[in-house]
């Protein structure tokens, strides 16, 4: 499975060397309380960047502003040369932005395979009702193959026919990841993917992330509390504290920064 499907993805309009994603000067406040203040983040194609910070630092708010779930008060978001200002989340998704959620968001009643089929179809089928009425809505061999590829990759095949509500939290997070991957994103936002997982599950999740990043050249923004996971995966790290960016740079250097250790690691 390639990262960008030339038939469906819009042509990149950014100039060579410019970041895939640029969120510049982001600001957001709730009833006078600043959740984000002048935060700038950039991600290059194929890069895995971490976003860390204590609870309430504004990480999820930044994620929501970048993926369009919330509208920032200030700042702009550009993705592959497209200005995302005012763009609905579903249109951002069609551009190649996928995400998972801190509080797991599955579709109850749908099987794991249905999750993937729905996500896959959402990428390419407009005029779905006309296809339904002409009895052309059964999964095609190509769709099933694409689903099976992702199910295999994430080890979800044994659960393929199980309903989402029957899964454990850990399996649910993997299904969220699979659902995002089948959208063939160019950038993947992962909001605390190890939350609620034990150490073995976290290791397995890290393996998968390394695989998809390397094999499929997907850029990933990882919002995470698990420092070991961040150190293992992320080449660069941004640190947020009380809505402000307090550090950024190569992960090892950021983790060694006294200011970061004081604000976040408590040392």
């Amino acid at each position: 499975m390639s990262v960008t499907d030339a038939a469906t993805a819009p042509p990149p309009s950014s100039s060579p060397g410019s970041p895939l994603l640029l969120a510049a000067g982001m600001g957001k406040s709730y009833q006078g309380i600043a959740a984000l203040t002048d935060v700038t983040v950039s991600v290059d194609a194929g890069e895995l960047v971490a976003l860390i910070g204590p609870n309430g630092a504004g990480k999820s708010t930044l994620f929501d502003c970048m993926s369009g779930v919330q509208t920032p008060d200030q700042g702009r978001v550009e993705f592959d040369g497209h200005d995302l200002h005012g763009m609905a989340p579903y249109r951002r998704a069609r551009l190649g932005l996928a995400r998972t959620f801190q509080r797991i968001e599955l579709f109850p009643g749908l099987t794991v395979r249905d999750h993937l089929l729905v996500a896959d179809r959402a990428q390419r089928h407009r005029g779905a009702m006309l296809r339904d009425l002409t009895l052309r809505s059964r999964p095609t061999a190509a769709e099933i193959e694409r689903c099976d590829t992702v199910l295999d990759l994430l080890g979800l095949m044994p659960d393929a026919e199980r309903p989402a509500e029957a899964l454990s939290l850990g399996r649910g997070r993997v299904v969220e990841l699979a659902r995002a991957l089948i959208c063939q994103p160019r950038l993947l936002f992962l909001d605390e993917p190890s939350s609620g997982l034990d150490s073995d599950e976290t290791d397995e999740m890290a393996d998968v992330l390394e695989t998809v990043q390397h094999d499929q050249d997907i850029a990933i923004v990882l919002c995470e509390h698990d420092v070991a996971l961040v150190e293992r995966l992320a080449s660069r790290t941004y640190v947020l504290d009380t809505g402000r960016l307090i550090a950024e740079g190569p992960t090892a250097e950021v983790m060694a920064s006294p200011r970061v250790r004081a604000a976040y690691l408590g040392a």
Partner: protein
Amino acid sequence: MNNLSSFAQYAVQGIPLGCVFALLAVGLTLNYKTSGVFNLAFAAQAFASAAVFYVLRKEHRWNLLLAAFVAVVVFGVAMAWILDTLIYRHQRTASPLAKLVTSLGLLVALPQIVLLVISTKSKLNPPPLWPVKRADDFLWPSSGKYVLDASQIATLVATALVVIGLIVLFRRGSLGLQMRAVVESPRLLQLQGVDADRVSRWAWILSSVLASLAGVLIAPLFAQLNSLDFFTLLVAAIAACVIGNLTSIPLAFLGGLGLGILQAELAGFLPTNSVLSTGLRPSLPFVVLFMVLFMRRSLRTRTAPADPMGGVDPPPPAPAADTRPQWMAHGTHVFGGVVIAVGLGLCMWVLDDYWVGLVTAGVCLAIVLLSITLTTGVGGTISLCQASFAAVGAFATAKFASGGMSVIVAIVLAALVAALVGLLLGAAILHLPGIYAALATLAFALMFQAVLVPLDWVSGGSVPITVPRPLIGGIDFASDRSFLLLACACLAVMGLAVIAIRDGTTGRFLDAVRGSSTAARSIGINPDRQRLVVFVAGAAVAGFGGGLVASYAEAANYDQSFTFFFSLVWVVLVITAGARLVQAAIISGVTFFVFPALLDKLFSWPGNYLASNPSTTGALNSFLSFFNPTWAQGVAFILFGFGALTYAKHPEGIIEAQGAVVSARIARRFGGRRSPTAAPGEPPPDTRPPDVAASIDVVA
């Protein structure tokens, strides 16, 4: 200066009606704040108390204070206690949708119970809650320039007292705080050591007494007690509730007052015979409600508060159809086919014209009801205006057919007209969250009824436009039996189309949206567009059904077939039977006509027996004389309404729930193994892994 004086005079005249709106709006807001239920049955409760007051005061000549006390306090408290004990306490943690459906069911059932108990004869000139002989004996100020009568003064005083009392309760008392907390999470409140049931019961008592007070106060506005008038007034008051965001009692009060004044100003300043005056004035509250819902941006992102303890609920059982063994699924299809064939055979060769006529009307209605399957079952939107779409279809069919067009072509074109109306309405309202979208459809239905239906060019005015029966390729469908076959063919086509949409990509997208709208957006699905697509398709199906109904009745008769109240009853019926099932729409359609007729036969039988056996005496005579054939329609509506109460327990519908039970029994009896479908009360097998840790074998 003269205009200013007139303005003030009209404003004063609008205050009493404004107080009526305000009282209802405050009551409804209180009800919502303290129970989480947008209680459309508030109107039914108000009607019930007004009826009790009428009987005590006017028929039994009770003392005013005693009658008022019994009707408002005793009856109000008793009604709350009964409803809470039997219904609401079992729905504390139910979804907002389930609570709305329950209130719709009660709205349909309660007035019929009242009418059965206190007799259905007309209740003319309801008495005022003011100790004067005539309603207009009390003028204020004494100059007589600004006229307020006794009932209006009573309403004004009562509204002011209620608003002040409620503000004090919610600002000062701990009970008010507890009442708001119990809406958020009754289980968390229990963990804090508070008896959530007691708090909730007090909330219902307070709301019920307020509904009773409102009912008794506003009854003199009408020449005759009629539950639909109460409901129409309540919907008007909802505009004021929405101005108050459904939560602010002072804003609801001011909104209601403003609405009354605006209406009086329009009545005063608009020319009496203009289209604006005859159309806009009666529909003003609905227009305001619609516009507020349409324009208020903050409503778009509003979501119902989620219970923090909601996770303790077990997952819903898997649909019976999904877990049936293959052999049983085939068996079910064969059984369904046999039932349809036998039913059609009976209609063709056994039943008389009366029953064939009812079944045909039911099949035509079933097509309209399929629109609810699409809009609500597949799209997840509670639409309370499907009868209006059907009416659009009927009127358009009548227009096209009267121009000489083939009836069946006219019906198809009428469906497209209804779809266009659905598109315009849906585009305006479908971004709203659940309850608000439902209210907007209700406002549309009432606007349609108040503004468009009376127009001659739409409905033919007082004489409905005639519609002929179809003539297709030389085959005349003039007889009921041939028309039944045509209706069945249309139903089959529409039913298959609905199934194709439900089980196809559109249905899957909407399943995803219902599961998590946020996640659906994150994978590229546009929820508003998907909902709009099925809403428009639903409007088209309703329009088609409406055209067929008109052709069958040979006239597009709004009052007989399409009033807004029918929308409510139909939604209740379909949702009770199973919102996602085509067979539920079919059964509901046929039941709507056949069941009251069966009850009529049942209740007529004792009278007929006595007539043919005049010698019957004693206890048997007394017993048989007790039954009254006029009960049939009322009892049918009571059962339809109470059916909706099952929704909270079986949101999948009673057909699905019973199907699961029967499937389990058959599988045990004949399958030699346990059905994968869970028995009621048990968690569904294979929906939770036996060992959560063991299941985490992910990721190679």
